[in-house]
C-alpha cells in the first residue's frame, strides 16, 4: 500500500470504510510526520492533535459498529486560520485577533465534519489573508516543501504547503485575489476557487465581501471534486450564497476532453506579463497534450491583466478598509508591516472609485461571458514564475503580482490551478483552467485529463 501520508482523501475514505486501515493509524502517522516536518515548514498555528486522535478513535468505533457518517469518514483535514473552528482561536495569523476563540464552526467546517472529516488544527496564512510572507507576526510564515528556502505562495500558505508535504490530504482555503490558486501553484497541488457564492463564507473572517471565495485544496483532482461536493451548497444566512444546486462534480472525471473547446488565453503570459521560458513551455505542453487527447484548442482574447488587477485592488482595498478601519486607527502597530500597508490603502480611495470599479467589473464579466460563447473552458497561466526565495523581499514583491488569477475573482467564474510541470530548479510550474459559472464539473473533467496524462498527482516534494 502507498505510504499512509500520501493517501488521498478518496483513497483514505475508501480504505477506512473497507477497514483496510484504521483512522487512528492514519491520524497517528500524520501526527508523527507533522512532529518531524512542521518545525521546518511552519504549517500549524494551532495543532489540535489530542482532539484529532480522539475523533479518529470515535470514527473507528462508529465504522466498526456499522454507522458510517459520510464520504470523508475518518479523513483528516487542515483548516486555514481565518475559518472558525468551535473552541479554537481564529487568529488570522495576527496579533489583532490572538485571543479570538470561535464559538461555532464555519459552515464549510461543519459540512466537512458532518461528512466525517476530522479537523487536525489551524493553519498559517498571510495576515488577514492579504499581503505576503511576513516575519514580524506572532507566528513564522509557512515554507515551501519543494525547497524550504522558497515561499509557498499565499495567502492559504499553510493549507497548500501541508497538503503538498503529506501532512494532511486536504485543506480549506480562501481566495480573494488568488489566495487558493497562488499557493496551489507554488506547491504543485490542486486548488479550486469555485463560482462566487457556491460555498458559504459564513464563519470565515472576511477580506473583501464581493471577492471572497472558499474552496478545496488537495493533491488530486478527484479529491478536489469530492471535497467540493461536501462543502458546496446554499446557505440562506450568507447573503452572497447562490441558490445553485450542488452539482455532480465528479461526473466528468475520466470522461476525457474529446470534443471540448478550450480557449488558450496566451496574451496573459505572452504580452501582459511575459512569463519565463520554462513556464511558457509548460503551458504550451498542457495545450498540446489536451489537443492530443481530442480537445479543440484555439486562441481567445480577454481584457489585459492590469485592468483586472486594478479593479480587484480598488474593490478589495475599499471593502477591506470597511472591515479593518477601526483597528488601523487604534492599533496600527499590532499589524505586520505588509498587511498594514495593504489594508490602509482603502483609506485613500473614494466612494466614486469603488462604484466605478464595480461598474467596470460588470463589463469585465461580460467580456469573459462572451469568451464562453466560443469555448467551454479557458486555459491560461496561473503564476508567471516559480516561487522565489523567502529571504528576497524585493523578489517577492516583484513576482507576487505576476499572475493571472485576479480576473476570476473579479468575474466570479470558477478557476482551478494545478501543477504544469517542474522547473529546472525543482519547483512547481502551474496552469489554470476556468469554466462557466457553476460548471465546476467541466473544470474537473479537463483538469483530470491533464493530471492523468502528466501524472502530476504522483509528483511529491523531496521532503521527509
Amino acid at each position: 500500500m502507498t505510504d499512509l501520508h500520501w493517501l488521498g482523501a478518496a483513497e483514505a475514505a475508501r480504505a477506512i470504510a473497507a477497514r483496510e486501515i484504521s483512522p487512528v493509524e492514519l491520524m497517528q502517522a500524520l501526527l508523527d510526520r507533522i512532529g518531524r516536518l512542521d518545525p521546518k515548514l511552519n504549517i500549524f498555528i494551532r495543532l489540535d492533535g489530542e482532539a484529532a486522535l480522539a475523533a479518529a478513535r470515535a470514527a473507528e468505533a462508529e465504522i466498526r459498529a456499522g454507522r458510517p457518517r459520510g464520504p470523508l469518514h475518518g479523513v483528516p483535514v487542515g483548516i486555514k486560520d481565518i475559518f472558525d473552528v468551535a473552541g479554537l482561536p481564529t487568529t488570522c495569523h495576527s496579533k489583532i485577533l490572538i485571543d479570538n476563540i470561535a464559538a461555532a464552526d464555519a459552515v464549510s467546517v461543519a459540512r466537512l465534519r458532518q461528512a466525517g472529516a476530522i479537523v487536525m488544527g489551524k493553519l498559517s496564512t498571510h495576515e488577514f489573508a492579504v499581503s505576503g510572507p511576513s516575519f514580524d507576526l506572532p507566528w513564522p510564515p509557512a515554507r515551501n516543501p519543494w525547497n524550504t528556502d522558497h515561499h509557498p505562495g499565499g495567502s492559504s500558505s499553510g493549507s497548500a504547503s501541508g497538503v503538498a508535504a503529506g501532512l494532511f490530504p486536504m485543506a480549506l482555503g480562501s481566495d480573494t485575489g488568488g489566495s487558493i490558486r497562488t499557493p496551489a501553484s507554488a506547491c504543485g497541488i490542486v486548488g479550486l476557487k469555485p463560482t462566487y457564492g457556491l460555498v458559504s463564507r459564513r464563519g470565515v473572517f472576511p477580506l473583501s465581501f464581493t471577492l471572497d471565495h472558499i474552496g478545496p485544496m488537495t493533491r488530486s483532482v478527484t479529491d478536489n471534486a469530492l471535497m467540493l461536493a461536501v462543502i458546496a451548497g446554499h446557505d440562506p444566512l450568507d447573503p452572497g450564497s447562490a441558490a445553485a444546486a450542488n452539482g455532480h462534480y465528479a461526473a466528468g472525471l475520466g470522461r476525457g476532453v474529446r470534443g471540448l473547446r478550450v480557449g488558450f488565453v496566451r496574451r496573459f503570459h505572452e504580452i501582459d506579463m511575459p512569463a519565463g521560458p520554462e513556464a511558457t513551455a509548460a503551458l504550451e505542453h498542457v495545450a498540446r497534450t489536451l489537443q492530443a487527447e481530442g480537445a479543440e484548442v484555439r486562441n481567445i482574447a480577454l481584457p489585459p491583466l492590469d485592468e483586472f488587477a486594478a479593479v480587484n485592488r480598488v474593490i478589495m482595498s475599499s471593502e477591506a478598509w470597511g472591515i479593518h478601519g477601526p483597528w488601523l486607527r487604534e492599533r496600527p502597530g499590532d499589524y505586520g508591516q505588509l498587511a498594514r500597508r495593504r489594508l490602509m490603502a482603502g483609506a485613500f480611495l473614494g466612494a466614486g472609485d469603488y462604484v466605478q470599479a464595480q461598474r467596470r467589473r460588470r463589463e469585465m464579466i461580460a467580456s469573459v461571458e462572451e469568451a464562453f460563447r466560443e469555448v467551454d473552458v479557458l486555459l491560461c497561466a496561473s503564476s508567471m514564475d516559480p516561487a522565489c526565495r523567502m529571504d528576497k523581499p524585493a523578489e517577492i514583491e516583484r513576482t507576487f503580482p505576476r499572475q493571472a488569477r485576479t480576473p476570476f475573482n473579479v468575474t466570479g467564474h470558477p478557476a482551478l490551478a494545478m501543477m504544469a510541470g517542474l522547473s529546472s530548479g525543482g519547483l512547481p510550474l502551474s496552469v489554470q483552467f476556468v469554466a462557466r459559472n457553476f460548471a465546476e464539473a467541466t473544470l474537473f473533467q479537463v483538469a483530470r485529463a491533464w493530471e492523468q496524462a502528466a501524472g502530476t498527482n504522483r509528483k511529491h516534494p523531496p521532503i521527509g
Partner: protein
Amino acid sequence: MDKATIELLARRAGLEKALADFPEDIVIAATQASGAAAKMKAPTDPRAEPWPPMRAGDGL
C-alpha cells in the same frame, strides 16, 4: 498624490496614530491606492450599473 494631500486624507480617515508611528507605510498605502485607481478604465456604457454582490436564487 503629494505629501500634504496624503496627510490630509490620512487625518480625515482617522489614521493619526499610523501617521505618527508609520509615516512611510501611509505613503506606500496612498501610492498603492492612487496607482490602482489610475489604472482602472472608466465604464464605457454610462448606464452600466455596479455589479451586485450576488443575485441569489439563480446564481450569478
